[in-house]
């Protein structure tokens, strides 16, 4: 059946939104990312060949260190970032939030990439990665929150996100396949015969609705179980607590929304899509971020007050280290970034005027704060206030860990950059779908 999507008159060498157009700045970006990634791969090969001793991680207690360090911090951070992307995409579909539709695709891509990076961050943390992966599928215990984290997050959530991204992109893939280009085979493969008939549209609406409905509880469960990895450990002061799971979900939303804002600004600039990603999109994201920030600040205050009120000795050691000791600069630095971001958001709401530069700065600030807060959740409870009579420990990431983590960021940037050179960053408008090329 010939429809508007596979219009026979479709002919053009230029694909929409700069797809397939390998500009000099883009090549420079890819080269830079490859260099950083290459160094990260080198550092990881060094770690594999020399053993985990080249990292800053040591056994808790007997070796006075931390066995979960920067890598686990980044696992929690990356999986957190993935939360907001798919949540926003699912909410857009469920509630037909038309204003936000232009950001749906890169929100989905952000989720997929962040989950891949989270999975890789787990693998680099393992001295014997292959053994770890095999044994996970062989012996994992569903009673453990790790099971929920790995089976639901990595398998279920990543797969569900890929399905959502794939199905929601079929219409645009069919449009892109009309253009003669080197990527035509890829777009045809993705479209898989889609021709935009009313039946297909209705079927697609139904599928994405049910998918979105299934994904949202999966998201909450997956991120809560990640919080339970820490929150259920009675023997580790600072971790055991009811607020861990909800606080994980909320901070995940904060860091993810910050990332979406930054990515939206980059796409808006790179594609020249000021008319598609209007300021009201940023206003939505800014308000949403502000609410989550206040919820998180509330959780943080409640946690702090509980920690300071009639604290047991081991908890006091930990709170001293956080509030006035070794980790104080990171704790207060993260708090300051979160508070300043919240104040700037409130200011813009009260003014009724949103500034792009402020929002991007806030997006970056809340992500730096999120990494800081994740680090403070993971590390201090291992180095300070152990229940056994060990001396206070310490942990500093080595150059290997920093390089591998930078390599992961470069890989993420590269994946996003490559994807948007092969596929439109913004969903094509109805006019683009219907028009001749």
């Amino acid at each position, binding site marked *: 059946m010939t429809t508007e999507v596979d219009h026979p008159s479709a002919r053009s060498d230029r694909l929409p939104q700069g797809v397939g157009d390998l500009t000099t700045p883009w090549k420079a970006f890819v080269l830079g990312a490859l260099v950083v990634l290459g160094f990260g791969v080198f550092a990881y090969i060094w770690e594999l060949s020399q053993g985990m001793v080249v990292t800053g991680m040591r056994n808790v207690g007997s070796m006075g260190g931390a066995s979960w360090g920067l890598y686990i911090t980044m696992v929690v951070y990356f999986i957190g970032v993935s939360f907001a992307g798919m949540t926003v995409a699912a909410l857009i579909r469920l509630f037909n939030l038309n204003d936000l539709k232009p950001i749906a695709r890169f929100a989905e891509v952000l989720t997929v990439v962040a989950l891949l990076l989270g999975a890789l961050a787990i693998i680099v943390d393992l001295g014997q990665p292959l053994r770890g992966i095999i044994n996970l*599928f062989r012996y*994992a215990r*569903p009673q453990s929150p790790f099971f929920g984290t790995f089976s639901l997050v990595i*398998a279920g959530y990543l797969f569900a996100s890929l*399905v959502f991204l794939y199905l929601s992109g*079929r219409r645009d893939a069919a449009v892109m396949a009309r253009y003669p280009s080197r990527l035509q085979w890829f777009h045809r493969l993705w479209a*898989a015969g889609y021709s935009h008939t009313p039946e297909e549209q209705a*079927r697609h609406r139904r599928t994405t609705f049910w998918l979105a409905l*299934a994904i949202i509880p999966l998201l909450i469960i997956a991120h809560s179980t990640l919080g339970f990895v820490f929150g259920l450990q009675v023997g580790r002061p600072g971790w055991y607590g009811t607020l861990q799971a909800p606080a994980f979900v909320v901070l995940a939303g904060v860091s993810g929304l910050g990332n979406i804002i930054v990515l939206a600004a980059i796409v808006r600039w790179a594609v020249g899509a000021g008319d598609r990603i209007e300021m009201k999109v940023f206003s939505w994201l800014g308000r949403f971020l502000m609410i989550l920030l206040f919820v998180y600040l509330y959780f943080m205050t409640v946690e702090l007050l509980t920690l300071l009120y009639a604290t047991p000795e081991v908890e006091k050691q930990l709170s001293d280290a956080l509030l006035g000791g070794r980790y104080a600069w990171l704790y207060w630095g993260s708090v300051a970034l979160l508070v300043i971001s919240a104040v700037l958001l409130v200011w813009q709401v009260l003014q009724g005027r949103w500034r792009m530069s402020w929002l991007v700065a806030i997006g970056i600030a809340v992500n730096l704060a999120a990494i800081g807060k994740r680090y403070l959740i993971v590390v201090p409870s291992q180095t300070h206030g152990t229940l056994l009579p060990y001396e206070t420990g310490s942990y500093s990431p080595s150059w290997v860990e920093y390089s591998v983590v930078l390599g992961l960021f470069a890989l993420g940037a590269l994946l996003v950059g490559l994807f948007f050179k092969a596929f439109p960053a913004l969903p094509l408008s109805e006019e683009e779908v219907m028009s001749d090329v």
Partner: protein
Amino acid sequence: MSRKAITLLMILGGLAFMIIGYFSSAPWGAESVRNSNPRFDFAPALFVLGVIIAFSSAVVYELLPTREEDDGAGE
């Protein structure tokens, strides 16, 4: 078999795999720590497979070519 029937079958099959995988990985009622391993190797993988099958049903639902009997089934 119609599109809806295949999709439903995949969802139910996925759920069945998840349930079997879950209870085989978590041996409820085991009285000794020695019996706390999954009842068979790679039982947790069965759970993951169930999740993947259930979500794959969405792709099958959209991609399966339309047949005349599907049209009559209120698609």
